């Protein structure tokens, strides 16, 4: 047994230099600036290794999920900050220097470079180089026993900051784990957390299922992968096998200052149950649903037709729902499956919705003449307009070679089942993407995290190239040193 472990260790040691050589030869990459949560500050507070809470950081394992559900508490009566050395500061920074090669087959370019008369065509562009991810500056933990918080200023790669997550949470109200209330901007209770995604490329570093918007649709409000503003009730059993949550959200996709509807809300529900399958381990099954309304009609100012932020009315509905399974096959292998069925009101399908960010966009209507996408009184949809619907599935298998090395892959596909405009090709906007990756943690301690990261993503969308409406394909190869402290 020990020899086996040692041989693994030796293998790892040999791997590291070979990976370094690969880095030198192939360069390194970057990924998108998708904020990700992995908090060595918690490991420092409790003296636990990252691996205690993360299958491979930042992805949580079930113990980490329970820790999160308890409000970042181990529930050992030492959770309050009064038990910490006063110098303890629960802060963590994460950033990833990368090298990446990005290639997209159809980009809009001038037919003759610099000539604006002859129009545009499409061309493949491939670029590569060293780059940076955004910076996540996490601070989170307990204010007192059963009072927790999270604050995440996050920047894009240029250093432009925004508040990615800010919330306070009252935990275990009345010593009851079924009563936990969160208030602020937070990640929805997705069992497969996009904020703890293991991948970093632009298209592979998000779950397409969590952000899908049909071609021509303008409903940005149903993106379950984006952190949202609202309040959440969450409850769980003592061992976290049973989890349930409901959140009331402003329909603004997490944007501050009430930029969209005057009174538009959505709700997100999630529930799951874990089962002990003996030697296979504990697997979890559940479902989620997001149901909401968002505005299509806006007050304007100054005769320009420009919408007034916060004045949106004429709410129209949308919903997404699906199942989630996190299935383990022993200590090393697991697979997560997420399904989704989505439905948007025909108004969104015809381009109404986010008029604030697209004030010059035009939409079809019953007059036959394109008009600003403002559902003013008297506006009616073009005849035959239908609610766009789609179905999608995400499959993400992992192979955990050992606590310091994970191999992963992901397949996602989204298929339109009904286009909003009759006659539209049935496959317009369909998405297929594959991702392969590995993360190797050369050390495992209770202070910091570091991962050699390598990833390849291939992305395909039907009929959405910018000029000819052909299929759009892109690929990205990325290497990085992912670290947080």
């Amino acid at each position, binding site marked *: 047994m020990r020899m086996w472990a040692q041989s693994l260790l030796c293998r790892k040691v040999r791997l590291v230099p070979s990976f370094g050589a690969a880095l030198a030869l192939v360069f390194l990459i970057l990924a998108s600036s998708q904020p990700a949560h992995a908090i060595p500050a918690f490991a420092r507070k409790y*003296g636990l290794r990252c691996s205690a809470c993360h299958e491979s950081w930042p992805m949580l394992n079930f*113990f980490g999920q329970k820790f999160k559900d308890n409000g970042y508490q181990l*529930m*050992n*009566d030492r959770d309050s900050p009064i038990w910490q050395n006063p110098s303890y500061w629960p802060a963590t920074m994460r950033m990833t220097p990368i090298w990446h090669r990005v290639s997209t087959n159809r980009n809009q370019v001038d037919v003759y470079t610099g000539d604006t008369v002859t129009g545009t065509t499409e061309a493949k562009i491939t670029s590569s180089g060293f780059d940076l991810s955004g910076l996540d500056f996490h601070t989170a933990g307990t204010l007192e026993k059963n009072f927790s918080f999270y604050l995440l200023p996050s920047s894009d790669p240029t250093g432009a900051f925004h508040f990615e997550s800010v919330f306070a949470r009252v935990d275990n109200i009345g010593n009851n784990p079924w009563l936990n209330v969160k208030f602020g901007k937070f990640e929805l209770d997705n069992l497969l957390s996009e904020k703890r995604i293991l991948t970093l490329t632009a298209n592979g570093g998000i779950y397409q299922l969590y952000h899908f918007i049909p071609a021509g649709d303008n409903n940005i409000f149903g993106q379950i992968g984006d952190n949202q503003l609202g309040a959440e009730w969450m409850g769980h059993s003592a061992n976290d096998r049973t989890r349930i949550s409901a959140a009331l959200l402003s329909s603004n996709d997490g944007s501050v200052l009430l930029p969209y509807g005057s009174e538009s809300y959505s709700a997100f529900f999630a529930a799951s149950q874990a089962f002990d399958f003996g030697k296979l381990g504990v697997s979890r099954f559940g479902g989620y649903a997001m149901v909401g309304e968002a505005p299509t009609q806006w007050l304007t100012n100054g005769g320009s037709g420009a919408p007034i932020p916060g004045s949106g009315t004429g709410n129209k509905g949308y919903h997404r729902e699906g199942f989630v399974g996190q299935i383990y096959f022993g200590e090393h292998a697991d697979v997560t499956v997420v399904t989704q069925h989505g439905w948007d009101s025909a108004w969104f399908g015809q381009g109404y919705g986010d008029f604030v960010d697209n004030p010059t966009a035009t939409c079809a209507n019953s007059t036959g003449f394109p008009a600003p996408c403002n559902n003013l009184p008297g506006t009616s949809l073009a005849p035959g307009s239908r609610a766009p619907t789609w179905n999608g599935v995400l499959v993400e298998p992992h192979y955990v070679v050992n606590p310091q090395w994970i191999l992963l892959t992901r397949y996602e596909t989204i298929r339109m089942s009904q286009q909003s405009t009759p006659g539209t090709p049935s496959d317009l906007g369909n998405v297929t993407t594959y991702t392969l990756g590995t993360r190797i943690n050369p050390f495992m301690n209770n202070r910091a995290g570091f991962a050699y990261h390598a990833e390849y993503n291939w992305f395909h969308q039907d009929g959405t190239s910018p000029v000819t409406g052909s299929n759009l394909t892109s690929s990205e190869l990325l290497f990085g040193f992912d670290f947080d402290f």
Partner: protein
Amino acid sequence: MNSRLPQMTYAAVIAGVFAFPALAQAQITEYQQDQWLHTAAITSHVGNVTGDGSGAEERYRRYCQVCHGKMGDGNGESAQWFEPPLYPKPRDFTLGVFKCRSTPTGTLPTDEDLYNTIGRGMDRSNMPPWNTFSEQTRADLVAWIKHYSPRWQTEKAGPPIEIPAEPEVTAERVKAGQEVYSRVQCWKCHGVTGNANGPSASTLTDDPGHPILPYNFHEGRPKCGNSDTELYKIFMTGLDGTPMPSFSDNIKPDEAWDLVFFLRTLQSYPSKAKEIAEQLHLKPLNPDGSLPK
């Protein structure tokens, strides 16, 4: 001076001859662990689940090693930062001495005792409840933990103590429990009001010599569980490795139940015993530990 040098050398050599085997016996080596791990003894049995120590190494490394150490000696990388008494040092598995047992003091715990400890955690320490693990994982870890101490090779777990059925809590039993609390001098450590401020409290150390606090009945939960049965077990088996002894020779089982009921009156949680104590206007012990008049 010079004439005594050879004598001292001989004495040192002789001491070394005896000391080295003793040290070698005490020192657990990876080789020995491997040998033990490959014996049939390094399994565990909890209910219908059979734990296999050889399947738990990576989980131990992932979850436990940072405190308990690669060699199971309680010297993981985090152990240096745990400052007793507020943060007890991690358990040294090589000694085969465990606090939470259903077995008599001085004996090895049952597999189920260890299994329950993993799932329950240790309140007021850095040992969290690992109750998200599958039953198999916990059983495997129990087997792995056992492979660190040679005691498991030569001894069997002690027989679980017999626990008579829990009687109904009554005013008489609560008062009798207070009498037991006074008589066996629980108050010397735990204080007359259960606030862990008895006259001996500040002097307590565990077996390795680290300062240790008695349980404050007004805060948190007892380390080995908070059910009536678990409380009963705590003072009838003792918490080995700590100053908390077994009182199985001092109090009868029926008296032990009385003590359980009285201890409930000290805790901050609502309980029937606490209600009874309030109805009785039960006064705390006098500062010298004697019963109130």
